[in-house]
């Protein structure tokens, strides 16, 4: 005979304001099998939990229902309280009176009645709860970091310095990411490379970090503490052990006219190439799409000139399987290719470029060695127009959000331009200036006051070429909304920051969720900004939302800290909410008939065959068995099983059935 305790929470007034908690408690008290019921202002508070513990002891409760907020909020809290009082934590359930009742209904009889129904339903469930015990799983203390930009670099270094193994996977030939492409960084104007490259080298040399460049995640299986990751190492066509990175191959390669990704198409590279001088590792790869040997079957110049004979044309992609305990995603962002802007003529007019391209023009290591020269004819532009919010905050372009970094880097761009072209005039069309951040507003002021950048509050409707000039038609909304036309030599679009291509597929490989714009979703917008809703997978940097460098770095360290915390334990205990195939006395052994349709349905290959043998060792029956290590507890198999031979702990057939009965029979 079960003795259930029911505890109704007022949640301050969040529940009691619309639900007559006293009546709910009273009604609950009358339910069969309920030994005690009460209501209290804050069940989750210390005194609140104490009441539960006392009652569990005093009344020898066999089950507890806490009717309060969502179990997704406080189930762990109350289950802990119960276990401290000596009751198996899985004998405690929560009725969601706040999110699902008091907050969504007005004060009324019906609301209170609904609360009573919900409580009764959970009481019936608890009656059928069975004590469960956590499944212990060992933790593999190696972290997989996906993406070698500043976020991935920071996370890797922090985790490695905490004494754990790190595998850093980067899809490009070198780590460094977007930060390595930047010229100077706001708000200090110190050179991006100068602060980044030391970190890149540190990664390469760190004893705890294994670096895999030109590699991508193929598959991720398993769960927190015990993931199995499959990495595709794309063929670099060179033997990295032999290659000394002397670079002769690249200088001799006959295919020289390939737009360099690193220089955003403003510079050229060869088919065998190192993306940029400070690359890590500083060893080349062959880009098969453009290599005349791979395409036309002859050339092999690089092979001839290579002093160490490191070229390997027959090299193939390699799949490596890794055991890792945690994953940090740091795949970063991309800039929207403004081909979606016919009105700005990007792609049509050579001298309309993106902010990222401007970074390369302004960068000392860039195609113009840091001189601001326009792509069309290499002239130094005397008039330059910057357009902030090219795409951002523009629902018509499908990007209602703010890209966050543009206000700052546009100010920076204008400044760099003014510093390099003293006679030049620069204009910035903007919607608002968002310079929230340490020394940010001051930075923008400097641009306006010291460098005399002309800020025009308004948007640009069209850009077109007329006798060698770019006519920028916009509006100045401040000076009683006059139309303005500027004859510019070059236009820079602060094109929106968007999620990286393929982020959707990656999210699906990792089973994590993503938002409407394909940025990965954090587990909680405020309290769990670096976690994903899949345990053991964390987020760092702009793959979660547009971020500037300081913010990215701090999130990366945050993610690293989370990994370190996870790795501080040797064992994790996993929720025992998993499926089980019943067993019964001979001659039946189990009602399972071994049709194994559950096996085809299981997303985790958790269903195995078990041969039941008699004393003589002859197989008398083949039945299904659930591997508790693999089962994640979705219960899909349960709904399939025609003979009702599989059931899932914590959501058993009996329980779900009882809940339906209880919920619908309120007379």
């Amino acid at each position: 005979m079960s003795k259930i305790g029911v505890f109704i929470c007022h949640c301050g007034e969040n529940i009691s304001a619309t639900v007559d908690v006293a009546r709910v408690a009273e009604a609950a008290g009358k339910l069969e099998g309920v030994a005690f019921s009460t209501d209290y202002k804050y069940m989750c508070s210390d005194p609140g939990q104490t009441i539960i513990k006392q009652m569990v002891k005093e009344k020898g409760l066999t089950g507890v229902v806490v009717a309060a907020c969502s179990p997704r909020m406080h189930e762990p809290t109350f289950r802990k309280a119960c276990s401290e009082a000596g009751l198996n934590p899985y004998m405690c359930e929560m009725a969601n009176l706040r999110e699902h009742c008091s907050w969504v209904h007005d004060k009324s009889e019906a609301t209170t009645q609904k609360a009573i129904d919900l409580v009764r339903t959970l009481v019936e469930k608890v009656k059928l709860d069975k004590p469960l015990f956590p499944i212990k799983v060992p933790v593999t203390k190696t972290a997989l970091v996906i993406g070698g930009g500043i976020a991935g670099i920071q996370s890797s270094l922090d985790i490695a310095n905490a004494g754990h193994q790190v595998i850093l996977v980067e899809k490009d030939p070198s780590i460094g990411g977007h930060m390595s492409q930047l010229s100077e960084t706001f708000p200090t104007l110190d050179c991006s490379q100068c602060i980044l490259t030391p970190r890149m080298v540190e990664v390469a040399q760190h004893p705890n970090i294994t670096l895999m460049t030109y590699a991508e995640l193929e598959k991720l299986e398993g769960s927190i503490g015990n993931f199995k990751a499959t990495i595709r190492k794309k063929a670099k066509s060179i033997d990295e052990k032999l290659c000394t990175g002397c670079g002769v191959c690249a200088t001799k390669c006959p295919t020289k006219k390939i737009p360099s990704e690193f220089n955003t198409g403003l510079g050229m590279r060869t088919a065998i190439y190192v993306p940029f001088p400070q690359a890590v590792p500083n060893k080349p790869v062959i880009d098969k799409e453009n290599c005349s040997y791979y395409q036309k079957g002859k050339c092999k110049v690089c092979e001839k000139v290579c002093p160490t004979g490191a070229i390997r044309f027959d090299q193939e992609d390699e799949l490596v399987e890794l055991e890792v305990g945690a994953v940090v995603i740091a795949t970063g962002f991309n800039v929207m290719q403004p081909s979606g802007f016919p009105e700005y003529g990007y792609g049509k007019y050579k001298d309309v470029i993106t902010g990222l391209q401007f970074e390369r023009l302004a960068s000392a290591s860039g195609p113009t060695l840091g001189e601001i020269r326009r792509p069309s004819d290499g002239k130094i532009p005397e008039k330059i127009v910057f357009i902030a919010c090219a795409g951002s905050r523009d629902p018509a372009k499908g990007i209602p959000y703010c890209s966050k970094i543009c206000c700052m880097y546009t100010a920076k761009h204008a400044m760099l331009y003014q510093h390099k072209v003293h006679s030049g005039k620069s204009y910035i069309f903007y919607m608002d200036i968002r310079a929230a951040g340490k020394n940010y507003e001051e930075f923008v002021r400097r641009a306006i006051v010291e460098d005399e950048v002309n800020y025009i509050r308004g948007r640009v409707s069209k850009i077109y070429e007329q006798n060698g000039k770019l006519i920028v038609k916009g509006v100045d909304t401040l000076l009683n909304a006059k139309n303005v036309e500027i004859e510019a030599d070059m236009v820079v679009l602060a094109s929106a920051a968007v999620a990286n291509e393929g982020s959707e597929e990656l999210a699906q490989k990792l089973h994590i969720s993503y938002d409407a714009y394909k940025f990965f979703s954090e587990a909680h917008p405020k309290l769990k900004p670096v976690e994903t809703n899949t345990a053991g997978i964390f987020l760092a940097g702009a793959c979660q939302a547009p971020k500037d460098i300081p913010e990215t770095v701090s999130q990366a360290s945050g993610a690293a800290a989370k990994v370190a915390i996870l790795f501080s334990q040797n064992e994790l205990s996993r929720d025992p909410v998993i499926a089980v195939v019943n067993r019964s006395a001979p001659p039946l052994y189990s009602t399972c008939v071994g049709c194994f349709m559950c096996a085809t349905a299981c997303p985790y290959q958790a269903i195995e065959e078990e041969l039941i043998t008699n004393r003589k060792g002859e197989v008398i029956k083949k039945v299904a068995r659930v591997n508790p290590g693999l089962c994640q507890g979705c219960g899909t198999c349960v709904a399939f099983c025609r003979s009702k031979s599989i059931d899932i702990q914590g959501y058993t057939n009996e329980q779900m059935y009882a809940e339906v009965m209880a919920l619908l029979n309120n007379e």
Partner: protein
Amino acid sequence: MSEFEPKIIAFVCNWCTYAGADLTGTSRIKYAQNVKIIRFPCTGRIDFMLLLKSFSEGADGIIVSGCHPNDCHYTSGNFHARRRWIMFRGLLDLLGIDVRRIQYSWVSAAEGSKWADVVNSTVATIRELGPYTDYAKVAGYLEKEAKL
């Protein structure tokens, strides 16, 4: 007799729709009291017999809701569920069990307002359809039995 208050039971998955309904709460979006939620780990877990049972226990309508395709926390539970409901719906329809009384939906953890819409529109539909007396009549034999 006051206006007919439909009894509606909602079978939702823990990861998307249950969380979505939580968000409806945290966003203080109001909806009708008629719908009461039962929490499942995944739509894949929802047994068709439970739906049938709900009707015989006096439900006038049913909501079944989970993660959008590709967003299932267990990667494919909702895909299996979708097939199951396609078949089940066809069968019920053939049998003259009113399929308009079962609303299937995908409501993600971020779609608090969508959940409110689903609830309210379902309540409206069921109000229009009225109490499910046809099924109740059939189920009525239960009580007779009990009386004997």
